[in-house]
């Protein structure tokens, strides 16, 4: 009798509604995923209450399965091409098409409200389909996407009656010279975010002004280069409540009427915390901005090569509350010194190269050291430079143990420590040793297997690692694969890792999102072996150079290999130059 009654005791003490209410407060994807694994009952409640889904690789799952599991889906984030596609290593036609997702979602009863895409191919057709399929669609965010024109944007503007957010970041968009901005109907008054900074073409300024006038909730506005300063002034008059502003072309005669009006309107814009743009810039006109500088938390001058020297440092000296700074390397080491002494709250710094020719990089290790001494809260770095030393890296690691992201790019990628002529193993070793929370790391410089030994030993939280021109042998890659338990993405180019490393622990790849290896030592035979043994991985060989007959020589080295875990087998949309083993 006792035995039977034990079997009938319920494990859940709360009714479903209470659990659902509890889950409402659990928002991070990771936590939600964990919750769903607790038991069948929790899985069920979680899946019905889930509204936001993140899919890091669009080929790891199908839209049908997504829809089946999460009928209450409102917001979908999808990523397509692998990261190295950013650097032209993946041909345009490789894949990552959003159309099938939109088609599947449209057929279902999903009430999609938000779509966020990164590195995907988005056609005008899919944008139009999207705009007509979801009555409550509110938010479209496209990052590093391609395949669409302003006609697609016109469809979104015209048909999404409750659109709140149209956010275009660094997309390749063809300008069709239509007036997409004019396609927002008069009844559209709901815009909160409008970012078209990446568009290359002309803009209907009148339509823009009228749109801003009828958007009282507008908080974020980022203009493209075609919007001149006097229009900016008019827009700000209508939208002094902006929190995030991206200027267009910031050029005028300082004695002009437009400029003096701009100066006074900036003084009314007390809410601006984030500033970007300045595609063309007249240094004399920067003083208008000083009043907003004191409250800025994010400043992006990475597309403003016209701003440098004293004008740049003067500007920065006004930004005492800055937390994130994106800048070009024309700031120089000394300029970083100014940042270090002014921006004590700085958490994230990105220094981009302004001249991509080798030998022209302006930054050295000195700027980074100065920065680390002045900004102990620094936790995220992207730094393009001419050279780096072990001593500097060790100092930086000790000064800033809070790094979560550390990406160093020495433009001559195999450069050793110029002071000691040693590889940079010790320097990066210090970074992983002292920065215990490091999640993302990119390495350059002369590096041997030893640095990977350090990474395997110390980088316990590492999730993403980018390697180029590094390592001596398979040992290097093995140190990483064996040591970094939380590794999710590994991308390697032009390094001496081959089949032995690739095949040692094949199960590891199912615990990772993806592995990219290009111009390494892996052979076709090695990739075939892997594909054969691991049916839940998709092993793609990308070979655009010659017609590679895949029945050929297994000893042939593979130019580009991209493998990822997937629950839905091989994709059906791969082009001819991709072979899925």
């Amino acid at each position, binding site marked *: 009798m006792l035995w039977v009654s034990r079997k009938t005791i319920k494990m859940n003490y709360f009714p479903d509604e209470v659990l659902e209410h509890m889950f409402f407060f659990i928002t991070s994807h990771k936590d939600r995923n964990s919750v769903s694994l607790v038991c069948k009952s929790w899985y069920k409640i979680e899946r019905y209450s889930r509204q936001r889904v993140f899919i890091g690789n669009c080929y790891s799952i199908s839209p049908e399965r997504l829809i089946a599991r999460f009928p209450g889906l409102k917001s979908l984030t999808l990523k397509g091409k692998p990261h190295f596609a950013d*650097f*032209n290593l993946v041909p345009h036609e490789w894949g990552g098409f959003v159309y099938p997702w939109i088609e599947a979602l449209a057929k279902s009863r999903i009430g999609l409200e938000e779509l966020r895409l990164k590195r995907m191919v988005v056609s005008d057709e899919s944008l139009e389909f999207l705009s007509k399929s979801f009555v409550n669609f509110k938010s479209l965010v496209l990052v590093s996407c391609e395949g669409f024109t302003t006609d697609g944007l016109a469809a979104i503007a015209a048909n999404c009656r409750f659109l709140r957010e149209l956010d275009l970041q*660094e*997309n390749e968009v063809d300008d069709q010279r239509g007036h997409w901005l004019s396609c927002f109907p008069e009844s559209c008054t709901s815009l909160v975010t409008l970012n078209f900074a990446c568009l290359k073409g002309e803009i209907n300024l009148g339509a823009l002004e009228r749109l801003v006038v009828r958007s009282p909730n507008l908080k974020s506005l980022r203009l493209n280069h075609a919007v001149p300063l006097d229009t900016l002034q008019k827009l700000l008059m209508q939208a002094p409540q902006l929190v995030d502003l991206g200027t267009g072309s910031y050029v005028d005669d300082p004695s002009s009427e437009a400029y003096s009006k701009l100066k006074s309107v900036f003084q009314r814009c007390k809410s601006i915390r984030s500033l970007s743009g300045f595609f063309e810039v007249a240094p004399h006109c920067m003083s208008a901005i000083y009043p907003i500088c004191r409250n800025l938390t994010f400043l992006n001058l990475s597309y403003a090569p016209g701003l440098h020297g004293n004008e740049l440092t003067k500007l920065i000296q006004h930004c005492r509350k800055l937390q994130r700074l994106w800048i070009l390397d024309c700031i120089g080491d000394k300029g970083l010194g100014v940042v270090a002494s002014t921006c004590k709250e700085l958490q994230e710094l990105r220094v981009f190269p302004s001249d991509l020719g*080798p030998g022209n990089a302006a930054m050295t290790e000195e700027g980074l050291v100065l920065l680390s001494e002045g900004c102990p809260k620094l936790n995220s770095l992207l730094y393009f430079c001419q050279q780096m030393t072990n001593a500097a890296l060790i100092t930086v690691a000790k000064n800033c143990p809070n790094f979560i992201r550390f990406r160093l790019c020495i433009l001559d*990628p195999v450069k050793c420590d110029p002071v000691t*002529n040693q590889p940079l193993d010790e320097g990066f070793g210090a970074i992983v040793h002292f920065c215990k929370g490091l999640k993302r790391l990119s390495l350059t410089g002369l590096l041997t297997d030893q640095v990977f030994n350090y990474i395997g030993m110390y980088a316990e939280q590492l999730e993403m690692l980018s390697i180029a021109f590094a390592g001596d042998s398979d040992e290097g890659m093995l140190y990483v694969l064996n040591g970094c338990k939380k590794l999710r993405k590994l991308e390697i180019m032009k390094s001496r890792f081959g089949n032995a490393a690739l095949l040692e622990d094949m199960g590891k790849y199912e615990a990772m999102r993806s592995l990219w290896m290009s111009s390494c030592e892996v052979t076709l035979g090695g990739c075939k072996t892997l594909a054969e043994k691991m049916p839940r991985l998709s092993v793609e060989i990308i070979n655009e150079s010659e017609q590679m007959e895949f029945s050929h020589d297994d*000893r*042939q080295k593979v130019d580009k290999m991209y493998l990822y875990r997937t629950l839905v087998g091989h994709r059906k949309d791969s082009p001819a130059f991709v072979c899925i083993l």
Partner: protein
Amino acid sequence: MSPENGKILPENDAADLNFEATELTLGLPGKSRVTSDGGAKLGNKRGFFETVDLNFGDKDCGQSQIDVQEAANSPVSKVQVEGWPPVRGFRKNAMTSCKYVKVAVDGAPYLRKVDLEMYDSYQQLLSSLEQMFSCFTIRNYLNEKKIIDHMNGIEYVPTYEDKDGDWMLVGDVPWQMFVESCKRLRLKKSSEAIGLAPRTPPKCASTTERSLN
């Protein structure tokens, strides 16, 4: 990948080393280099640039350190490598802009545009302007840069507006500096060009005389 044949051996005390000893071998000491048909990719993995071959495998780093130093200093031709530098295509395109500037001519109703990146020197630019406004010919009188309208006998002086908004005489600064700072061009009638930065007095005069003798 870089070709294997970019070889510039540094002059050093170890001139008696044979070639293999100075080849870049990045395996740990004692490891033999694996060769295969894909030889081109193996040899100079470090050959991102066409670079010198270094012996890096020795435990005794003394010699190789010198090699590295000399390699770093020796002139290398830098080859573009796919995927490098790791900068997003969008950003690359945005930064390598054409440098189109407007060209105005006093008295002409329409402006033209020229791409300064298309030229390597002032001479080329002025020749091109000559062609554009075809009734003029350029007279490059020693170091003076003038454009002359032979039909009307009007002299035009090329001037430009720089980043600071000042109007300058074309030709004073090195070409590259000019390209970077020029925002637009104006061919001013010579009489109106008075008041710009004074010309450097022609040292030319004496040299011409000398060369004529």
